[in-house]
């Protein structure tokens, strides 16, 4: 039952990810990415990481993709032009698909060959907000503060770039 759910989910995920890459319209491509991220959050839920799933939607699908859409709209990106040279398109697609297939084969062999036993059952409360919080603010305080600094850079950078020359 769980396997079936996961397979359906994985199929949908791969489908929407392909839509992101293959669709000529940038806005629809971005919306396909939103769907992909949402489905990824569902995968997190299946892995019992409830808080991370919610945060994935709040931050990634809800904030970052809005920024993507703003940029697409501000730059007025139109549909990807169909190149007048079909031969080049075939070459590009061929290389891309071949590289993807190679990566897939490598990953499958790595995972299938690894000596993974059955994973231990998740401890009680695994993935809950309280557990994540406790370890985040005790064991991982330093990365947390560094993340704060990174966010500060993210705040100051665009302001400097946008206001340059004014």
């Amino acid at each position, binding site marked *: 039952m769980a396997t079936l759910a996961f397979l359906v989910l994985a199929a949908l995920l791969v489908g929407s990810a392909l839509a992101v890459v293959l669709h000529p319209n940038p806005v629809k491509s971005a919306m396909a990415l939103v769907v992909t991220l949402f489905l990824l959050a569902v995968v997190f839920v299946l892995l019992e990481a409830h808080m991370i799933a919610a945060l994935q939607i709040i931050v990634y699908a809800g904030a970052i993709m809005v920024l993507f859409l703003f940029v697409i*709209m501000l730059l007025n990106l139109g549909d990807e032009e169909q190149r007048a040279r079909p031969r080049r398109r075939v070459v590009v697609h061929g290389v891309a698909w071949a590289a993807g297939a190679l990566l897939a084969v490598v990953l499958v062999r790595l995972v299938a060959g690894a000596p993974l036993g059955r994973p231990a059952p998740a401890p009680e409360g695994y993935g809950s907000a309280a557990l994540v919080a406790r370890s985040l603010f005790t064991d991982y305080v330093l990365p947390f503060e560094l993340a704060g600094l990174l966010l500060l850079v993210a705040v100051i950078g665009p302001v400097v770039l946008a206001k340059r020359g004014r």
Partner: protein
Amino acid sequence: MWVDVGIAAAKAFAVVMLVLNMSLVLLWVERKGSALIQDRIGANRANVFGGLLPFNLGIINTLIADPIKLLTKEDLIPAGADRVLHFVAPFLAVFPVIVTFAAIPFGDVLVIGGRTIELQAAALDVGVLYVLAMSSLAVYGVVLGGWATNSRWSLLGAVRGSAQMISYEIALGLGLVAAIMTFGTLDLQEIARAQGAHLWGVVPLWGILYQPVAFLILLIAGFAESKRVPFDLPEGESELVAGYFTEYSGMKQAAFMLSDFAEVVVVAGLATTLFFGAWQVPFLARDGWHLPGGVFVAMPHLAVVALQIAAFTIKVFALCCFQILVRWTLPRYRYDHLMDLGWKWLLPIALANVVVTAVVVVLVA
């Protein structure tokens, strides 16, 4: 197992119907309420049976004639508009808002036939985060709504609208953080249950006693999220025609309108759950009334459940009416003032509220 799924389906359906029906009722309340406030009669022209009745029933107009009109209007899509996005945008405007209500508890527990049923469509451990997640998805309806129609004015309304929504989402989040700090859990049903205690045995310990500032922030941010007056410039009635949903007709426009009222219901539901004790009736516990002075009156379980659900509905409705009252009382904010309010006032105040709450709780407790 199938019985459980059936029960969950019934609850999910009940919640969706609650939001939709309350939105419809609010539509009528808004029309008549605004008429009352503006000293006029309001919509009262639709008559049943073509003049047979000696009076006009305004409610028939709103609840029957209006939907019929909207259903039968031609679905116009401007040339150059993207047909797929033209469908997706109103869908994405309404769907996340309705779905948010799944995490909000509308009662305590219902014990039937040996089964204890939580009266909450989705008893999530991370209920508050779920609500926030769905609210952040509501922006896409606005953004795509303006983009899909290939109209410059719609796009302007859409970008302004989404910029407004995302600015106030932070303040909303911070207000919720302060409320969460008081209760120490993300589970909305736990928060509802925690508000059953009484101060000195008399005053119900509802969230608003702990966090009045957070309630105000939630309310103001909620107004901005639903783009209602005083923050309705993106919709800009009388300025941008209808802003980002100008080019939608028929049921697609109805969907955008519905998202407005559904958001009112959701904000009211959230505020009720966090600040007004959700389904709690003062002095009512699961087994009966525990009145001050030690008086105990036993009540049958179903009566308790009915009272609690009724209390929840009344509280939500009262907050919705309050939002409608505010809409017809305050003038509209200019856009730069609106953004100033969000970033320069609400955000610092909300942050300060969080810090003060934290310091007080840690140092005092």
